[in-house]
């Protein structure tokens, strides 16, 4: 119950009295090295962001309104909140200022924008992240456990033999078996996607399936399947053009983190 109350937005306002008390009796300055968050917070205040940012002003007006008498004068409410040091003590104000500066710290100057050559190198360095795993396309003849009951295994064996002996095409509209909810034709799918739909044993078995031949039966949580793998695509590395958006944002993010670290170090040195 206490924790639930603690999460409730209204509780935050109800605790305003405590905050006010705290703001009038601020804790002594710490002598420990300032954290990154503290440095960013101080920078934001030094820059005046706490006076100009619209979100902060709204927050302070809300807090001021909680104790103010004239709720119509927004500037007065903000001033009241500041006199009560709520701009220093409110966690949401602190969070916002910190995050805005954090984002700012990670900005990459336009002069540093990457060339295509740099993006290509970055893509190569992150090949594992971008490589599309091997995929396969297959047709499956599904025999449901419920429909075949005790005959499931023997029926599957018979169907496999018939399909092989009569060289039945996987495109044949009259393939035997039951319909499958997600369809008879599947893919191209990665192994992970096959596993999510049919289970891991099924995905394992498909790794061993021959190309363009009836194979099986293969078990899934739903029953047995006779498989025809019609296409195997090897794992492939996409071109920069195909993944440019992801690469650009990945590059910018990585470079931004470097900048943020450098700027914090510089700030700490001051």
């Amino acid at each position, binding site marked *: *119950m*206490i*924790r*639930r109350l603690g999460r*409730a*937005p209204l509780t935050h306002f109800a605790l305003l009295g405590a905050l006010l008390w705290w703001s009038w009796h601020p804790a002594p300055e710490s002598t420990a090295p300032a954290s990154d968050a503290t440095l960013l917070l101080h*920078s934001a205040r*030094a*820059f005046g962001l706490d*006076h*100009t*940012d*619209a*979100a902060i002003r*709204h927050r302070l007006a809300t807090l001021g309104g909680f104790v103010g008498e004239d709720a119509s004068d927004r500037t007065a409410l903000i001033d009241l909140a500041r006199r009560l040091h709520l701009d220093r003590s409110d*966690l949401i104000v602190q*969070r*916002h200022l910190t995050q805005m*500066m954090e*984002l*700012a710290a990670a*900005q990459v*100057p*336009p002069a540093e*924008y*990457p060339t*295509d050559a740099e993006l290509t190198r970055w893509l190569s360095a992150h090949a594992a992240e971008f490589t*599309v795993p091997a*995929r396969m396309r297959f047709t499956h003849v599904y025999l*449901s456990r*419920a429909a075949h009951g005790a005959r499931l295994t023997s029926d599957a064996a018979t169907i496999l033999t018939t399909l092989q002996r009569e060289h039945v095409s996987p495109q044949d*509209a009259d*393939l035997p078996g*039951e319909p499958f*909810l*997600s*369809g008879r034709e599947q893919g*191209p*799918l*990665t192994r*992970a996607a096959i*596993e*999510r739909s049919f*289970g*891991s*044993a099924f995905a394992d078995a498909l790794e061993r399936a021959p190309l363009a031949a009836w194979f099986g039966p293969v078990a899934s*949580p*739903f*029953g047995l399947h006779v498989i025809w793998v019609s296409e195997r695509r090897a794992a492939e590395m*996409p071109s920069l053009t*195909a*993944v*440019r*958006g*992801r690469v650009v*944002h990945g590059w*910018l*993010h990585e470079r931004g983190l470097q900048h943020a670290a450098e*700027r914090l170090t*510089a700030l700490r040195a001051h």
Partner: protein
Amino acid sequence: MQRWLLSVLSVCVLSAPAVAATPPWARTETRAACANSQPLRQAFFGDVHIHTRFSADAYIFGTRVGPRDAYDFATGGTIAVSDDDEQQTRSASIDRPLDFAAVTDHAELFGEVDRCITPGSPAYEVNLCQLLRKVEQTADEEFLTTVSWLFPLGIPNPPTGLSMCTDTPGVDCDAAAISVWQEMQAAAEQFYDRTDACRFTTFIGYEHTPSPLGRHRHRNVIFRNQHVPPIALSHLDTLPGGVPQGLWNALDAQCLQAGTGCDAVIIPHNSNRSGGEQFVDPTDAADALRRQTFEPLVEIHQIKGNSECRFDRLAGLGVGSTDDLCTFEQMIGAHEGPDATDVGVNDFPRRNLIRPTLEDGLGFEQTLGANPFRFGFIGGTDTHDATAGAVDERTWIGGQGRNDGSAASLIGGNLRTNPGGLAVVWAEENSRDAIFAAMKRRETYATSGTRPQLRFFAGDLSDVTCGAADFLARAYATGVAMGGELGPLRGRKSPRFAVWAMKDPGTATAPGTDLQRLQIVKGWVDASGATHEEVVDVAGDANNGATVDPATCAPQGLGAAELCTVWEDPHFDPLQRAFYYVRALENPSCRWSTRVCQQAGVDPFAADCAAQAAAAPAAFGDCCLNTSTDRFLSPTIQERAWSSPIWYRPDAVARLRGRVGFGRRTGRDHVALRFQLAERPPTWDLKRDAFTLSITDDDTIFSLAVPAGGLRRHGKRWSYKQRTGGRVTLTITDRPRGAIVALAANGIDLSNAAREDHPVSVTIATGVFRAEHNRWWRSRGAGLAPETK
């Protein structure tokens, strides 16, 4: 007629449509088509309700990971999670990555520094902005370093010469870069797979979060593509316009009408905590229609409880319901906050719950002519840990940072929360356009966290049979899928409802649970305006004896790997508005809290549970609550899925016959349509209102707009003739109750139509009345035609 000829004709009529490739949506993005595209659609599992450190409450809870971490998590990565002391000592991952996700941080207090660079904005002349703009000339000024940090990407001189600014989807160099909103867009782009592998789709979104006195009127806004408004329109921005109308107005102006390619859906959620204020009465028919248009979906299940319905097992009462399965994952209070007291069933707000709200929507449609509450269903997490899609009861560690920072915190403080659910869409491929289109047409369903697959159709379906190879093709050709609307059938008989579900296959280490049964939930409104509901078991066995091993939580007893049935409503009344949705129930499994309590040495199944609890830390005192002692909690649960409803409307398009014919030369095409409205809509005024009729697939094939006053009356017949761009004649004939609409157009250009079997929509609109007929049309000779059922 010769028997052989009859046979040939019957084959022509009844054979399944050939599978085609044209989906009923246009591609709005620069991206590769997905290699895995299925015209009869496939299920994609996702979570479009995720909070990260950019949400003020999540930050307060100790969450320090951001949107990129959330997307990494959704694709299988591991992220840090706060403990009781806000230290990032815990970690989490999911064993089944999601197909799609949207980070939806609270837009409130995102920050507005970006407005500094917008001439004319209120913030433009403030000191901060002046500093920003002159920073390049003030290299030695105080705070130089800090100020330079605030210089956004390419502002004020966007480097448009760089290829990344002109060629890269999602990189908008004309916008300000320093804002949380920009960071969220960048994160979404970084994880969106635009290759033909289509492994993961992200959506840009945010949460709009008004909570007057703790009454949640929260909505997620999900955008179709990278074209989004310049700021995330929070409730602080939209409050003057009202809730939710202010949001609709703002999105209309800054997205839908902006001419940028922007489109969005709004998804209300957590109505169970809204104090009855989430779904308020529409002010008028236009207001009802706007809600139906802007808000096609509702989130029915999430961490903070289920919103479908409510039943108190100890009182033996429900909120307008006798459905005892509505004890599932209920929170206690009807809203949040210190004043949120325990509310009995009789005082629990009806509009906190989605089923009664849908019933009320039918009533509004009957009186106003428009249904404000025509919601499809999705599930979500509402995680505040960035743990997208972490919904496994077996491994859940909470979703609210330090509030759930340990087993003791989770059990002691948040026992009635749950892992939340998933959103599932039936889409052709895993891309933004395909999934967004599925959301708009409501071909979606919700799960309580597991991954069963669920199909639901209604219509004539006279040749749709479980076990038939052409089940899906026939169902799409002669009926509507979940989320659609249906008019009367020939003979005013009951529609047939086809339901097909397959169990969650699970994983190697955690096999999925068998299905127990399928239910159809019907709600309707009678002629007096009174609402009713009924829950019918249509497949499976409620008494299959399946349970769990209390020592291990392993399932005991069998259910079904799949269930399928075609059902007719024995109480169907063609004059009554109704909705039908499916609830698919799994066999019992252990609730998350059962495992956590057992690990703490308090076994909810044990006869001496109370003694165990007494010996354990106080936080675990509620571990022994069960069906005898608690209104809602149980050591076991039945995971479930909810299909979006299908709406039966007496005044919907019915018995549509038609043909689109392609001439040998451009401009020589023709179209003929004839359909019924069995009931005249209550707001129908052909003399006063404009009338539009359109035929669409991924493009507009044909569109006719009759201006207000354009229809001429001749006795019981209304007609409109147009002689520009071909010869077009529309006639509407009044019948004793309804009307017959006929269209003949010759010498027109229908080159936008795909010439293959594919989904086609016929839509009519007049005043606040809207009706839509969605079926697969077949390519026949030099034309297209729907099946005449």
